[in-house]
């Protein structure tokens, strides 16, 4: 009797010891299949001659070779460079400025902050719909200016091959600069006021305070903003679809729209897969060192 209850306890403790791993293992399995297995599969496909359906005919680097000779892909990469650099820089500047301004004991901060941030709650499709029309010369901003008597006013970037990519920047900045503001504001509120007061006693000007004390302390916020914005930029898909559909022509194509159209509408799955791999590598180059550093700091 005593012996059997002993093994019962043993079994229970052993189960208790295994439970945590047991609970975690389905998630791990799901990740290994749906994330890492899928990544491996897509990488494999990128080395095959898959067209409409996956094929397992190995063709080596041929897809990558062809990919970088396709004009639309080069346009997409070029656009991504323009879009992501402007998007990151402008969002950071606006976000930092709004955060610093809001931090000056502003009356009505409680009203302004949610106004700056609400676009982040919207779908890019909604943002795209709103801006598409706002920027449409026939009924939007240009037309309004004409009706108000400023007849020489021209703003037709969205119809202009060379300028359309900048309309994507405008809409994307509109959507996420408030978010950057929130990140910087949290950083600013974490700065010790005693240091600032001490520096003021020593006669430091406001500009010096910001340059020498405040901005350096915001470095983690800068880094996070950069990482988040760059990863959003590389993934950008919905906004382009809703705002310009990649047009005029393919003037606003981005890697994400290229991947989708080559894989699903042009039946060039091998090429599509190779473009997805390039996107993954770009994001991994930014995210892996960042995540590694974050995790190491913790432990």
């Amino acid at each position, binding site marked *: 009797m005593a012996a059997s209850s002993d093994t019962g306890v043993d079994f229970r403790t052993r189960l208790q010891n295994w439970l945590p791993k047991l609970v*975690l293992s389905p998630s791990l399995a799901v990740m290994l299949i749906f994330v890492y297995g899928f990544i491996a599969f897509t990488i494999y496909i990128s080395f095959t001659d898959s067209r409409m359906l996956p094929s397992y005919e190995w063709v080596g680097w041929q897809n990558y070779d062809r990919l970088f000779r396709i004009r639309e892909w080069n346009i997409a990469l070029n656009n991504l460079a323009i879009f992501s650099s402007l998007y990151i820089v402008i969002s950071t500047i606006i976000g930092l400025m709004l955060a610093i301004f809001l931090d000056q004991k502003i009356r009505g901060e409680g009203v302004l902050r949610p106004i700056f941030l609400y676009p982040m709650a919207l779908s890019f499709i909604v943002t795209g719909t709103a801006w598409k029309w706002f920027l449409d010369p026939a009924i939007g901003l240009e037309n309004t200016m004409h009706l108000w008597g400023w007849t020489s006013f021209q703003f037709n970037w969205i119809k202009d091959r060379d300028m359309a990519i900048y309309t994507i920047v405008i809409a994307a900045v509109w959507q996420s600069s408030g978010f950057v503001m929130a990140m910087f504001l949290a950083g600013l509120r974490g700065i010790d006021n005693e240091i600032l007061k001490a520096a003021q006693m020593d006669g430091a000007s406001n500009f010096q305070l910001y340059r020498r004390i405040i901005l350096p302390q915001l470095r983690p916020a800068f880094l996070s903003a950069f990482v988040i914005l760059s990863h959003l930029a590389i993934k950008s898909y919905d906004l382009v679809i809703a705002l310009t559909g990649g047009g005029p022509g393919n003037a606003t194509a981005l890697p994400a729209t290229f991947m989708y159209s080559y894989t699903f509408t042009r039946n060039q799955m091998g090429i599509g897969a190779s473009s997805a791999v390039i*996107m993954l590598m770009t994001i991994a180059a930014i995210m892996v060192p960042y995540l590694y550093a974050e995790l190491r700091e913790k432990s």
Partner: protein
Amino acid sequence: MAVASTDTAIRSSNWSRMLIYLVLLLFALFYLLPFGIMLVNSLKPLEEITGGNMVALPRTWTIEPWLSAWSTAQIGVEPTGLRPYFINSIMMAVPAVLLSTIVGALNGYVLTKWQFRGSTIVFGLLLFSCFIPFQIVLIPMARILGLLQIAGTTPGLVLVHFVYGIGFTTLYFRNYYAAFPTELVRAAQIDGAGFFQIFRRILLPSSGPIIAVSFIWQFTNIWNDFLFGASFASGGSAPMTVALNNLVNSSTGVREYNVHFAGAIMAAGPTLLVYIVAGRYFVRGLMAGSVKG
């Protein structure tokens, strides 16, 4: 943000304060304008939009565009309005949000209170999945959904959003539970409480805020998703964002801008409502997803 009370010690002159207020108000206008104008114009008859000024208030107020967008507008080939797609999105988002939150809570609990050799690596693997470009999984996912015979259905989308939501929910709960005193867990363990008992009696009762964050953030992400919806849901099972895009970018017939705007606001409605009601948690979710710890 509760920290809002600790203002800066910086002092500024009256002139620069005026300038600051001016800039802040201009930006408030910049953020409000596109959506505000869309709202106003969704209440105008079409001819007032095409022949009039977008910033003018409607001369004739009408809710006709809203009714049309909801129940009669042409989406794709069917004149169903957006209502069925709105329901699709709810049927997709609610189970996916619940499932990913439950799993994330348990994962976070294990990763903080029952650490084992290699648990940091497991967390790293989960974390990286938050940031992959989903283009990398589209091709195999289409195959798997086909094999499971849920391609082009709402359950298929629930699966997809559940799977790719686990990383984020785990991150939230892990960071939250990391601050929870481990001594309480150990004490309960000595008293003979089991794995699930400790979770239910000790951690869960104080998890309210992080559950709210997880619900809101997952709901916002899933509701607003377009890529998965466009890739894996066809025709009648499409979510709201895909239906809205079909409505706005359909090339046939007269462009009924007012109907488009009403539809866009409907698509934005649920997440906007969540933001207005629980903005505090929304901001926390944004932060937790970016500044870890």
